[in-house]
């Protein structure tokens, strides 16, 4: 029982960052119909931002998180304006190829600038964990958990309670009608991509110090983000959040009770199972075509 509860604690902490990754991707995927293969690279970008600000410049750790969030936003907007905007009416395959190209360029760029050897970041949190009875959790991970929750709540608020969010939702439902109602579609697309990228960068910035930072860290993050989005259904923030926790839970329990060698396979097994019964994902929104 103690072991199980420890697995549950691990699940919540891991799941919160998975959710962040998933929300960023589902926004871009759902609203823009762009399969963003560079999502994992924005995650790595966020982690390197923290390394740069915190280790190389020697500035405050918390400040570096904000820098990563903002830098992710700016880079996202730049990618949208330079790479995606000219291809607005191209089909989904074309933009997919463009994003694969962007991924390769970003990953090799990271390797060129930072080298292939992993970096680590020391945080102001104490190394001794918080121990409650038989359970223990590191302060850093606890902080990551709450920071992720704040970001998830903020994006939920942004989408459901602000004017920008309303415009984004309208665009998701029907781009042409939204445009006729006076919504600036170009601006909405830019903001969507910027916010999605910023969330990926934030996830990287939070997880980078927990793990190590390397140019390849984006690969596995991308893979998981796609799994979460498929699990939760396209364009659904709630779905991506629950999808994130579900994937983390499947991995924890799979590794804890079945076989650690197949840890990453567990999540994907669940996805196959869910897709068999609900091909649009757990929480897919009703879609309108046309």
């Amino acid at each position: 029982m103690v072991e199980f509860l420890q697995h549950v604690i691990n699940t919540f902490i891991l799941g919160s960052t998975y959710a962040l990754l998933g929300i960023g991707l589902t926004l871009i995927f759902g609203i823009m119909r762009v399969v963003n293969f560079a999502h994992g690279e924005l995650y790595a970008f966020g982690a390197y931002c923290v390394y740069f600000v915190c280790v190389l410049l020697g500035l405050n750790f918390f400040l570096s998180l904000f820098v990563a969030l903002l830098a992710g936003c700016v880079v996202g907007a730049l990618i949208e304006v330079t790479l995606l905007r000219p291809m607005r009416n191209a089909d989904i395959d074309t933009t997919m190829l463009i994003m694969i190209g962007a991924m390769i360029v970003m990953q090799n760029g990271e390797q060129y600038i930072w080298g292939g050897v992993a970096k680590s970041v020391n945080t102001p949190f104490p190394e001794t964990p918080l121990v409650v009875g038989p359970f223990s959790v590191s302060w850093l991970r606890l902080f990551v958990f709450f920071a992720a929750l704040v970001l998830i709540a903020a994006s939920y608020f942004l989408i459901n309670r602000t004017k920008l969010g309303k415009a984004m939702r309208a665009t998701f439902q029907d781009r042409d009608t939204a445009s006729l109602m006076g919504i600036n579609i170009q601006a909405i697309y830019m903001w969507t991509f910027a916010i999605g990228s910023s969330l990926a960068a934030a996830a990287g910035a939070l997880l980078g110090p927990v793990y190590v930072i390397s140019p390849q860290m984006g690969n596995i993050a991308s893979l998981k983000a796609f799994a979460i989005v498929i699990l939760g259904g396209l364009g659904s923030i709630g779905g991506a959040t629950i999808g994130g926790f579900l994937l983390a839970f499947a991995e924890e329990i799979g590794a804890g009770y079945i076989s650690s060698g197949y840890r990453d396979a567990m999540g994907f097994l669940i996805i196959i199972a869910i897709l068999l019964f609900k091909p649009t994902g757990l929480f897919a929104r009703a879609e309108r075509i046309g």
Partner: protein
Amino acid sequence: MKFESRLLTTVAAALLSAGLASQASAQTIKIGVNEPLTGPFAASGTYVVNGAKIAADEINSKGGLLGKKVELVIEDNKSNSTEAAAVAEKLITADKVPVIMGAWGSSLTLAVMPKLLEYKVPMVVETSSSGKITTSGNPYIFRISPPSAVEAAAFKNILPKLHMKKVDFLVINNDWGRGAAEDFGKVLKGEGVGVGLVETMDQAAQDMSAQLSKIKATDSDTIMVTTAVEQLTLVLKQAASLGIKKKIVTTGGSQNPDQLIDQAGAAASGTYHLAFFTPWYPDQTPNPAAAKYFLDEWKKRGYPFAGTTESFRGYDGIRTIAVAIEKAGKADPEAITKALWQTELVGLNGKIKFQKQGPDGKESGQSMPNVYLIEIKDGKVILPKL
């Protein structure tokens, strides 16, 4: 007409480049280096290459080999088996190297081995420790690193002092990790130490909390971990954050203890590591003069001291190859393969001399290096008095 002239140009260019290539190879002796410079083993592979460069520069500063300069042809195998085989093929067919050093990981080396058989080119294996490498009947393999079985046998003598009763394993999920769990498991059982869980982790995995939570709940008193420094750092940090109080012993010699101290901090304190070179105490190494030269040179080049427990492999590997080339008298794969059997030198980790291992008639070479147990205590590396 147009087609013919283009054809002529192509032929001329091909002849010219072939001529240039043979001219270049006539001036230098090439040694192929097949190491992971990116991916999960990037840190270790880069250190090995830097050690190899020190050896090559040392040889060249003393006049080179057979009157020619040594040239290292370094390729990145990306910590990926498919790439490792492709890189070996490229080194052999395009660069025409007569001998290779590589490929760091056991799975990487195993992937390269069929290429060695195909082209009959020898490879000095500097790091890999899976038993399979020298027992599968590949006569072009010459290994200077200890296989897990040798490491485990050396560990047997240390074992009584560690007072272990029951052990869980947490190993990287590849030939190296699974081989280590098997070989150490045998020795432990033979000595009456219980073996509990054998948990694995994917080589790219960053979160081992699930495996460690499972191990935390068992009645074992020790965790034996086999993986490279990046993942090991995460294992130590995550074990500490889960409040695991068990003794941690690591194997494989790729722990870079100073990097652990730097990156895992207090989480590394009190952990034991099987190492193959002890740069903290150069006077106690088998070849103090060479060790001091190597450490000085390493420092001069501004590399982190933490890398020396890994980079010595590259230094020893290239020096072994150099002695074999001198002995062969020519840079030819067959002659070097023969000469490697007669090669004898004192490396940074003891005497290097190849013994036969594997099926009769197609034995691989295996040198028997030293194994040391070190302890990290309060940010320092000590040799525990055993």
